[in-house]
C-alpha cells in the first residue's frame, strides 16, 4: 500500500473558525493540525493522507498584503515540505477563491502538487483555471461534504504524482490543455459510431467540445461619420512584403499594426498576404481587397469620414481558437479605444 501523504491545508479566517469580516485582516499563521473545515477534509482523506499543518490567512490580508502573504505562505511550505497542498473549498467566494488559487500557484512554483475547489463561476477560476487544478463545487458551502470528497480524491492522486487523466474523467475544471494519447479505435470508426448514435437518438460525447460564441451587444451607431476617426483591421494575413516580423500564416499568437498615415493606397510588391486559409495571389496583386486603404483615402478626401486612423491592424484569422481570437481582438479593441477611434472596418477573408 502507498505510504501516507503529508498534506498542508489552506483555509481563510472564516473556515478556520476565527470569525467573519472582523477577522479578515488576520495575517498568515500556521497550525500543526487540521483546523475548522480541515477536520472534515482529514476524514475525507482517510488513511491516504494526513494534514500535518493548516495555513490560515484572512481574506483581506491575503488581498491587501499580497506580497507579504505570498512570501509567508511560500516560507511555510518550504519549512513544512508537504507532499501535497489542498486549498479551500472556496465555493463562490471572490477573495478566498483567488487566495486558494494563488496558494496552489505558490505550491506549484515550489514543485509541490496542489489542488483547490470552488464554483466554476468564481473569480479565482476565471483568473487561474489554466494554471491551477480546480475541483468544481456548487456555489454554497452546503455542498461541503461532496466538495471535500472530490477534493480529497484528486489531492491523493496528484500527491502520489500519478498521471492525471482528462478533466471530465478526473473531476477537475478543464485547463485548456490538449494531451496526445492513443485510442483503441481509429477516428473514422469513432466518427461513424457517433453518427450512428446520433441517428438512433442514443447519447454520445463529441471529442471536440462546442463552445458557443459569446454574445456581444452591438455598439451604438456612429452619430457623425464625417467627424469620426475610422480604423482598418484585416484578418486576411496582410504583411509588408517579405513578412519582416515573422507573422505566422495561421493560428496567430500576435497581431501586428503597421503605419499607413503616409500611404495613399496599398501597392502590390510592397505588401503580401501570408495566410494558409485561402489563395492569396489576387490579394498580392491588389492588397486593397483585404485592407481597402485606397477607397478610404478617397472617402476621407471627399469628407465622408473625418479621418483614417494612422495604423492598420492585421493578422491571419485562420485556425485560431476562440479564446486566442478573443485575446487578440481585445488587444486591438483596447488600442483603438485608447486612440479614440470612432468606428472600425474589419475585413475578414
Amino acid at each position: 500500500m502507498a505510504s501516507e501523504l503529508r498534506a498542508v491545508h489552506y483555509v481563510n479566517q472564516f473556515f478556520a473558525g476565527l470569525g467573519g469580516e472582523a477577522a479578515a485582516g488576520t495575517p498568515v499563521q500556521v497550525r500543526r493540525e487540521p483546523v475548522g473545515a480541515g477536520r472534515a477534509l482529514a476524514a475525507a482523506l482517510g488513511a491516504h493522507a494526513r494534514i500535518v499543518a493548516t495555513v490560515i490567512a484572512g481574506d483581506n490580508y491575503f488581498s491587501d498584503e499580497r506580497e507579504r502573504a505570498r512570501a509567508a505562505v511560500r516560507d511555510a511550505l518550504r519549512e513544512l515540505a508537504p507532499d501535497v497542498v489542498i486549498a479551500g473549498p472556496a465555493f463562490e467566494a471572490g477573495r478566498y477563491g483567488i487566495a486558494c488559487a494563488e496558494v496552489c500557484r505558490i505550491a506549484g512554483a515550489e514543485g509541490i502538487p496542489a489542488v483547490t475547489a470552488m464554483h466554476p463561476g468564481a473569480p479565482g477560476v476565471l483568473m487561474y483555471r489554466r494554471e491551477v487544478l480546480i475541483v468544481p463545487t456548487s456555489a454554497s458551502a452546503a455542498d461541503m461534504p461532496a466538495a471535500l470528497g472530490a477534493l480529497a480524491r484528486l489531492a491523493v492522486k496528484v500527491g502520489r504524482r500519478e498521471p492525471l487523466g482528462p478533466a471530465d474523467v478526473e473531476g477537475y475544471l478543464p485547463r485548456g490543455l490538449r494531451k496526445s494519447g492513443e485510442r483503441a479505435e481509429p477516428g473514422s470508426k469513432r466518427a461513424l459510431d457517433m453518427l450512428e448514435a446520433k441517428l438512433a437518438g442514443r447519447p454520445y460525447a463529441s471529442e471536440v467540445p462546442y463552445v458557443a460564441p459569446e454574445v456581444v451587444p452591438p455598439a451604438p451607431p456612429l452619430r457623425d461619420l464625417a467627424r469620426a476617426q475610422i480604423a482598418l483591421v484585416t484578418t486576411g494575413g496582410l504583411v509588408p512584403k517579405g513578412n519582416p516580423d515573422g507573422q505566422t500564416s495561421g493560428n496567430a499568437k500576435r497581431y501586428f499594426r503597421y503605419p499607413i498615415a503616409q500611404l495613399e493606397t496599398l501597392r502590390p510588391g510592397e505588401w503580401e498576404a501570408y495566410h494558409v486559409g485561402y489563395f492569396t495571389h489576387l490579394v498580392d496583386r491588389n492588397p486593397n481587397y483585404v485592407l481597402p486603404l485606397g477607397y478610404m483615402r478617397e472617402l476621407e478626401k471627399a469628407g465622408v469620414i473625418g479621418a483614417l486612423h494612422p495604423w492598420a491592424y492585421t493578422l491571419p484569422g485562420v485556425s485560431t481558437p476562440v479564446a486566442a481570437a478573443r485575446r487578440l481582438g481585445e488587444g486591438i479593441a483596447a488600442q483603438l479605444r485608447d486612440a479614440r477611434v470612432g468606428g472600425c472596418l474589419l475585413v475578414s477573408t
Partner: protein
Amino acid sequence: MISAIYDLALTTGASRVVRGCRIEHVCGNPTLGAEKDHAYGLTIIRTALGALTAAVTGPTLFDPTESPPETVHAS
C-alpha cells in the same frame, strides 16, 4: 465586418455584417475590369461605413449589391 462568408459572420454573432464579394477578393472583383471593380469596391466600403451609422439590435446583414429601398411617401 466585411466578409464573403457573411452567413458565418451572422451565425457567430457579428453585429454589422457587410456582404463581401469572394474570400479571395473581399472588397472588389477583379473579373469586372479596373473601372467597374473600383466602383464595386467603393460601394462595398460605403455600405460598410453606412452600417456603422445604423442602429442594430443583433446580427444584421448589409448587402452592397442591393440598391437601397426607395422611400415612398403616400401623401
